[in-house]
């Protein structure tokens, strides 16, 4: 139950409010086994034209966070118990605008992990792209379809006019993901949420899709929220990074801060577990031992306590607040408390 991290105001105060602002978001799911606290007070903000990467292992609440601000979690069993999500100053959660056509598909576009199953198999690609324009921009089918062909062309799919009349099963995975991007950008949204956009694709296609996203971002200045567990993708794309663990943000900062001045033991663990091209023994993969805490009954103290090599007594009993490391960089770890004299050499200190 701590206050939102200091980062929200730490950055040089912008002239107008950030494009996307999420504060103290809490999401729960009712299941047969009890209530799962999937997201426990997540806050972040995002400026126009910037990319925020959300990283963390499976089940840490990355997808639930963005899906709940998009109103895509099934309710029930899901429940947003607290928090604010504002886009361009409009509250997305409180005004029930989520079901309206103002936000989804128009202000925020979204692409998903598995392009093979994320498109309707009985509808042509062109129609699926055109549909968004028909609904949001009130275009006629003919006009929307013509625009869909342009969008397909923009995502560098050859023979766009012919392709628009084909069905998803006639496309390859990479082309399907391009089509998804074309679809999510149809109404020129100011935010693109990409939920593990490259996880289901092979490596060369991954690079092409990421390049495409970066190019489109440069052209139209949209902000991107990129969910991934691939640190390579983060390094390539992100301006800011949000490291999530057990439904919380454990470290937040600029991409260089998080990578080179990692301030949370979990971030260090993730980096050590990342495969590299080097083959010498020093580059052996070091997995993080143990498993994340049970979110049916989250621990009193730090969620990473059981797996942390630097765990202290305070970590078990008391939940750590977010400590500011530098401007725009903070970590939720007791190692940064002024009274902490523990030597944890790898962890970046102020």
């Amino acid at each position: 139950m701590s206050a939102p991290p200091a980062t929200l105001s730490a950055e040089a105060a912008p002239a107008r409010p950030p494009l996307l602002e999420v504060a103290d978001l809490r999401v729960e799911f009712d299941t047969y086994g009890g209530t799962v606290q999937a997201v426990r007070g997540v806050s972040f903000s995002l400026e126009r034209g910037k990319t925020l990467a959300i990283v963390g292992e499976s089940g840490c609440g990355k997808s639930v966070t963005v899906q709940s601000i998009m109103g895509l979690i099934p309710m029930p069993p899901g429940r947003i118990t607290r928090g604010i999500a504002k886009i361009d100053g409009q509250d997305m959660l409180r005004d029930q605008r989520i079901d309206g056509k103002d936000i989804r598909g128009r202000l925020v576009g979204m692409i998903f992990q598995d392009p093979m199953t994320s498109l309707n198999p009985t509808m042509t690609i062109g129609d699926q792209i055109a549909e968004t324009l028909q609904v949001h921009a009130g275009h006629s089918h003919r006009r929307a379809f013509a625009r869909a062909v342009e969008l397909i062309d923009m995502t560098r799919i050859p023979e766009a006019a012919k392709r628009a009349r084909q069905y998803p099963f006639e496309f390859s995975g990479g082309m399907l993901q391009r089509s998804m991007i074309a679809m999510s950008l149809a109404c020129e949204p100011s935010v693109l949420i990409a939920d593990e956009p490259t996880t289901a694709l092979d490596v060369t296609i991954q690079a092409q899709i990421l390049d495409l996203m970066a190019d489109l971002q440069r052209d139209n200045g949209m902000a991107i929220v990129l969910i991934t567990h691939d640190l390579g993708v983060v390094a390539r794309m992100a301006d800011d990074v949000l490291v999530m663990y057990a439904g919380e943000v454990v470290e937040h900062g600029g991409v260089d801060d998080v990578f080179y001045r990692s301030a949370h033991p979990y971030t260090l663990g993730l980096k050590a577990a990342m495969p590299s091209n080097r083959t010498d023994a020093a580059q052996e993969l070091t997995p993080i031992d143990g498993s994340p805490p049970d979110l049916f009954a989250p621990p009193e103290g730090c969620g990473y306590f059981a797996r942390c090599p630097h765990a202290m007594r305070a970590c078990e009993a008391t939940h750590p607040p977010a400590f500011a490391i530098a401007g725009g960089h903070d970590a939720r770890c007791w190692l940064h408390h002024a009274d902490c004299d523990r030597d944890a050499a790898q962890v970046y200190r102020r």
Partner: protein
Amino acid sequence: MLMYTLKRLLQGVVTVWFIATATFFAMHAVPGNPLTNEKAVSPKIWAELQKRYGLDKPLLEQYGLYIKNMASGDFGVSYTQQNRQVNDIITEHFKVSATLGILAVVFAAFGGILWGALTAMYRNRAPDIVIVFLVILGISVPGFVFAAFGQLSLVKVNDWLGFTLFPVAGWGTVQHMIVPSMVLGLGTMAFLTRLMRSSMLEIVNSDFVRTARSKGLPMTRIFRKHELRNAILPVITVLGPSIAAITTGGFVVELVFAIPGLGRYFVQAVQQLDYTVIMGTTVFYGAFLVFMVIAVDLLYGMVDPRVRLE
């Protein structure tokens, strides 16, 4: 697509030929023949009769003759009904059976899709529980029970109203058709409801429906364009066999509601070993079913682009 259609039609013809052959030999394996019902006649007249109807010839020759006539569209003359061509019986009564059957299929398909979608939308809530209970009833209770109950309730309703809203039996007007076709389609509708329900539940949670929601589409459009069309695919798949179930069930319903369909002739013919009528009705029904199944398969290709063939 054209090649595929032609191939399927050819297969259909072979199937019908097989049905005709199997029926022919099964029928002749039954002791006696259509003339055994006649009063005792002298052996000379008996032999004369046998010869006249060609029943004295070897079985294979009779078979060859029959197939030849059938191929030219002639099913022969009834043994038991004087001067009645089997072709006349079929043309006169089949349209009644077909009307009843098609109405029942339409009723079952639309009902099944509607109720199935509804139960999926209200999953585990009151409408779902009530409909699923009725569905179990519909699947487990045999058609003739529904037929009898349907007729009885018609009597009660007409009694209570003081005039005949729906006639209790007979054929001719639209009012005559409604209740029998509903009774006939009920079991299939129940079965299709279950199928549609499970298919719909799967589709509602699918990735592409989530995509459609992320696009900010209105609920009605998601239902119409994304959920319904994908959810009815399994329903269409079983529609072919369902037509068979409905048509065979038709005999009973025709009997209960005194509908002058082909079913009565079929049953009568089997009882009296009326060779030509048995053959005519069986082959005709068989052909009808085979080609309905082909039609359903072609329809499937229209709904699902993935099975469209070149």
